[in-house]
């Protein structure tokens, strides 16, 4: 079942056009990765999807057109965007950040969910009363992901989750993301420079070059594609 269907997506910043008509899909339960060099338009793509910038084209999510909705409405519809640089609110505690993640929910299971995510990320549980800004980059990235999950989203957009993290932390993070997808069936659209780690948990992927998709295929196909290997995997 198609969860997210993007057709002819164009967009940019003011007069500067960044995206030149992207077409891609994310099926329910899939992890899809978008690879690309700096400036290819990866972050812009995610920002267009979450309504953070003006874009044109068609974006159908869960059967509804979401392109011209406001950011908070898109979030309420079930798209959780973990922005580049994590976006944790540094002067709120870990616990408060998680609670804020559940802002769109009206049910009474928020406390139970918080404990669930503390079980997935035990390091957050140890720091629940601590200000988010006092934690390390890796811990803040975990918090950003747990906070996104608090909304019980249908699709998580992850922008460079490995940015600024030590390799060992990055590996742990991707193991957790892979497990979340396999065990809970959470759909993800991941933008990532660390192609080998991203492809390891992905079902499919796209390669973005200066605002256009140049290669599309399954994770295995991309991993064995010579151009992709040379450009993004380094061997």
């Amino acid at each position: 079942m198609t969860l997210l269907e993007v057709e002819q997506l164009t967009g940019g910043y003011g007069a500067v056009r960044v995206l030149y008509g992207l077409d891609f899909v994310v099926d329910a339960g899939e992890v899809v990765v978008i690879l690309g060099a700096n400036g290819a338009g990866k972050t812009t793509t995610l920002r267009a999807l979450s309504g953070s910038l003006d874009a044109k084209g068609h974006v159908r999510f869960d059967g509804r057109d979401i392109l011209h909705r406001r950011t908070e409405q898109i979030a309420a519809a079930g798209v959780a965007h973990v922005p580049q640089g994590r976006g944790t609110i540094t002067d709120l505690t870990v616990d408060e950040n998680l609670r804020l993640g559940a802002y769109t929910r009206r049910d009474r299971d928020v406390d139970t969910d918080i404990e669930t995510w503390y079980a997935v990320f035990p390091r957050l549980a140890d720091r629940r009363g601590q200000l988010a800004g006092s934690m390390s980059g890796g811990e803040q990235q975990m918090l950003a992901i747990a906070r996104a999950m608090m909304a019980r989203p249908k699709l998580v957009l992850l922008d460079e989750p490995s940015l600024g993290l030590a390799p060992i932390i990055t590996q742990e993070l991707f193991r957790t993301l892979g497990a979340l997808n396999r065990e809970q069936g959470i759909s993800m659209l991941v933008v990532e420079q660390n192609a080998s780690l991203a492809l390891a948990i992905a079902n499919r992927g796209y390669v973005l070059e200066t605002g256009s998709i140049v290669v599309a295929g399954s994770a295995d196909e991309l991993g064995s594609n010579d151009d992709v290997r040379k450009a993004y995997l380094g061997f």
Partner: protein
Amino acid sequence: MALFFTQLLTGIQNGAVYASLAIALVLIFRTTGILNFAQGEMALFSTYLLWKFTDSGLTVWLAIIITMAISFVGGALIERVVIRPVEQSSALVIVIVTIGLFLAINSLAQVIYGSGQRAVPTFYPHHIWRPGGVIISSDTLVLVGVLAIECLLLFLLLQRTKLGLAFRGVSGNAESSRLLGVPVGRILMVGWGLSAAVGALAGAMAIPTTAGLVPSSMQQILVFAFAAAAIGGFDSVVGAVVGGIIVGVADALTIGYVNALHGIDLVVPFGLILLVLLFRPAGLFGSTHVERV
């Protein structure tokens, strides 16, 4: 010694008013990063409403509550209609817009209510005690009590409710709060509304203890409130309260002991602002943002 304690109490009483208006400044600064120069005049207009209500025979405390409710709506509308269109502009543009608001609201108040002196009654009986020569006024006790209740309610709102959490989220990082589904625009409207209501309360605290309401009533109070917020740190409610009391007490003691400064006691808040900016630019309770990356 009696003079000292009398002046100390007067200072605390005035300080409670400065603190209340400083809290109004802080509420807007925290969410939008705007120094609202119109805060005093918004409170002025609210106090004219209060006068109108009491003048037409409404019970004072009920009139205060109704005035605060109307001020909330008015503040929210000002955010939506006047501030939102310039929200993305430079700080200079926004400062000029709030100064424009200052002049506009003050003129509007004069057009509607005239420039005559309007007496606003207190909602409590006036009484003075004189134990050992120290003058203790019921004004002081009530105003400090009102400030304490105001702070308690604000604390509960900000720390214990979902709205308060969203408010603090938007203060910390509006973009990221928006991605979590927080309707940032609506929260900013609530912030301005809350600030206007708190300002209205400051007016209702200050004016009944003076000779009466005139169009310039809130201007000196605003200067003291700015000093209070600068001393406490512009993003801290606690700081606004402590700053307000410091400014009030410093001013009252100066007037009491330094005859040379009588009538030009605005020197005191400006002197205090200068000292704070020199030695602790973020204020006593303000946060300098430290972050591990």
